[in-house]
């Protein structure tokens, strides 16, 4: 789980082009959207692609993403439970 969290932080920074953000800046429970990292709706869609590409998880409704992408913690949990690769 810890490994997944670290991996996610690195991936998010690279996939979403978060220049000037380091993995250690992102706390496991920080909100990713809104005030937190300031991600927007396109970033959410990009995370959906990442789930598919890297973990074999397909989300069909963008609304499902809301709870999953709340924080690194919730993402890591969801991925650990649902990954197919």
């Amino acid at each position, binding site marked *: 789980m810890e490994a997944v969290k670290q991996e996610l932080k690195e991936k998010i920074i690279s996939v*979403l*082009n*978060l*220049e*000037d953000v380091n993995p250690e800046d992102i706390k496991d429970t920080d909100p990713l959207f809104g005030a937190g990292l*300031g991600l927007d709706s*396109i*970033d959410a*869609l*990009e995370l959906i*692609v990442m789930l*598919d*590409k890297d973990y074999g998880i397909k989300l069909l409704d963008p609304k499902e993403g809301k709870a999953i992408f709340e924080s690194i913690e919730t993402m890591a949990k969801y991925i650990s439970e649902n990954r197919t690769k």
Partner: protein
Amino acid sequence: MADKNSFIQSWCTIQNNKINLNGETIFESEPTIGFADFAKAAYRNFGWSYPKFFKMDSLSKLAFIAAELLLKDETTNETETDIALVFSNKSSSMDTDVTFQESIATKENYYPSPAVFVYTLPNICMGEISIRHNLKSENSFFIFEKFNPGFLSNYTDVLLSTNRAEKVLCAWVDFYKETYRANFYLVNSTEGLEHNETTIKTLFNT
């Protein structure tokens, strides 16, 4: 028609990793480095803080840098400014179109990126500038074979003389496969260089 005079108050060119503002070179990088690194170096050099910059495609970054230099003292976050945008180029959003096309071209590696797709329209760069500078004014994007000062100056004069905008930011902004050029100039109706086809051609050496 053009009963109002119009003037170019400032202008900016970016090409070959060199930025010129009002005729002076204000920043340059080694011609050998790629545009992404050049753009990042320029961003750092001017001390900007706008993390969204790094999410933009090359066309938007190019437009953003030029607009930032010309509009920095013109706009504020608090109030809207009435500056119309009249942009043009030849390659439309081709550079990003190709990136997106490659992501859907084969079944084996089919992961189209929404963040890439949103930039597959040339006018997205005007949207980025409008967001950054809080501009809700008129904007239009034209596709031409080459930089067309005659068309742009006519269109700009119509916008100013019919009071559709207080100022007009005109641009040729073209980017394809590391070859790029930005010609930006800001037109007002009070002071500056006389705004006409000849002046534009002289300033941008076309």
